[in-house]
């Protein structure tokens, strides 16, 4: 061990330098991608607005003006009002808080379960791997869309269940990605070298596997958030997701669709908010994928 230890600092140093330049490279490439940068800025803006909504919103969430009723966009109400005279901009801002929260929290749940599961399966390998991935395969084959609808019907429509249900669907792909990353990394010469040098599994995972698997995980996470937000909006549209008095973009779209003939702005503005966010996330995710060279680097 003593003889080997001398090689460790050098190995560490070189690795750290490579890591840093990889990320710097990726950052340079990402900065050149205008769509991805635009997506990132828009997203940041939406997040800030969502966080500061109680202070930024022009009207209070409960404020109604039944005398006014539904009115088109005006100076007092930039995005118009709904049939109860509620300010649409305020509704969209509060709805965005819920939609974004669902997106980020459910994705975090999926990330945590998926990465842990995949890393263990991929690293331990053998029979453990086979059993763990068989479980993923079986769950993968379950028609979750239908199951989520069923869950929301059976256990009532609460937000916590929504997070869990969506998170439970999305971790499967994350686990598969992480496993395949870990598995292919394990066969790389530098990991074999590390193993033969006597590094502990924990050290190998920390120093070699995680930094190398981070790219695909970041990319996939960025792309999971929009699909989670879509799922929430889909359920809310059917009346099975977010329930009043809370609101979300999906719910606002569903209300808007009912009265779109007379009051199209009730459909268009929440729709625009959701679409813009999904756009930003997807462009950012694609940009990150190209910048981190997730696909190409393996071959």
């Amino acid at each position, binding site marked *: 061990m003593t003889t080997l230890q001398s090689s460790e600092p050098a190995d560490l140093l070189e690795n750290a330098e490579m890591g840093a330049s990889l990320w710097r490279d990726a950052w340079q490439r990402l900065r050149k991608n205008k769509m991805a940068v635009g997506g990132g800025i828009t997203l940041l803006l939406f997040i800030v607005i969502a966080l500061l909504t109680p202070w930024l919103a022009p009207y209070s969430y409960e404020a109604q003006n039944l005398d006014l009723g539904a009115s088109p966009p005006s100076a007092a109400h930039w995005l118009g009002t709904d049939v109860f005279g509620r300010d649409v901009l305020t509704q969209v801002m509060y709805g965005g808080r819920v939609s974004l929260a669902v997106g980020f929290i459910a994705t975090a749940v999926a990330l945590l379960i998926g990465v842990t599961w995949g890393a263990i399966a991929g690293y331990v390998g053998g029979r453990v791997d086979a059993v763990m991935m*068989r479980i993923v*395969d*079986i769950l993968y*084959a*379950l*028609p979750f*869309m*239908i*199951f989520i*609808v*069923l*869950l929301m*019907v*059976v*256990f*009532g429509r609460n937000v916590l269940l929504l997070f869990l249900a969506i998170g439970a669907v999305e971790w499967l792909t994350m686990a598969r990605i992480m496993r395949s990353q870990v598995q292919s990394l394990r066969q790389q010469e530098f990991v074999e070298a590390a193993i033969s040098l006597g590094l502990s599994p924990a050290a190998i995972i920390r120093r070699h596997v995680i930094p190398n698997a981070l790219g695909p995980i970041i990319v996939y996470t960025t792309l999971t958030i*929009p699909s989670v937000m*879509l799922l929430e*909006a*889909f359920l809310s*549209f*059917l*009346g*099975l997701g977010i329930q009043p008095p809370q609101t979300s973009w*999906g719910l606002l*779209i*569903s209300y*808007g*669709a009912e009265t*779109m*003939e007379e009051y*199209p702005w009730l*459909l268009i503005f929440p*729709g625009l908010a*959701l*679409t813009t966010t*999904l*756009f930003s996330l*997807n*462009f950012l995710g694609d940009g990150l994928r190209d910048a981190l060279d997730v*696909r190409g680097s393996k071959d």
Partner: protein
Amino acid sequence: MLRFIISRLLQAIPVIFIVITATFFLVRAAPGGPFDAEKVVLPEVKRALEAQYKLDLPLYEQYFAYLTDLAQGELGPSFKYPGRSVNEILFSGLPVTAELGFYALLIALIIGVTAGVLASLKPNTRQDYIPMSLAMIGICMPSFLLGPLLVLVFGIYLEWLPISGWGSIPGDKILPSITLGAAYAAYVARLSRAGMLEILSQDYIRTARAKGLPEWQVVSKHALRGGLIPVIAFLGPAFAGLLAGSFVVETIFQIPGLGRFYVQAAFNRDYTMILGTTVFLSTLIVLFNLISDVAAAWLNPRLRSQLSGGGK
């Protein structure tokens, strides 16, 4: 190959069994019985009804009775529509949803593959950017937003197309099919572009070009087959997505299909209907996944030789 199919089949059976069991107990665990809404029902009538639907038996006996019925293809009577069986309701909705899904898939494949292949042939040019930007719009525009917007523009403002129904007015199938298919066209376009790009950078494509084959032959004979494998593999999950999408599209356009029945059954707490539909749809999805997996494996020569070589 046969071994692969058999092993995938064996894998599918426990999945279907888990679906049946989980759905059965989930639905039975739901608060509120199906006859709770009708408050005027006399106790003895309620008891008679419960006996008729076997709700008075212990849970495990209900479960085995259900499995026995299921084995004979019998999904039981509907709670909500007395006198109609779940089988009848399902089979009245199935052709509608199947037709809707078929058109949507057709739109998705034709538009998606064309756009994706064109984009892959000249990456990072206008021929790539324009279809891919459109694909991005398709992905970010959920069906429940696209549907109402299409209705608003083509149905209400322009008055070109009917805004609801299925098969009663000419042209009323167009908007629902586009609404359902658009997102999948976008996914297919992206997948076929990525798949083609990967294949086009392979050595055997370079060989084909080097031996002087014209470009269209390189693409159609050598690249397409491999480049479209991701699309074939995507068809399984897409099928599940199309079914779920039909919930929304059939609700928007008031189409009497499976998706709408499912959502209605969910709201009505129609136990047997939910149970029957879930089991039926799940089985369909599992089978479709199986078929698309086998097809993708068949098309992939590397995987195929590995499989017929009697590997694992």
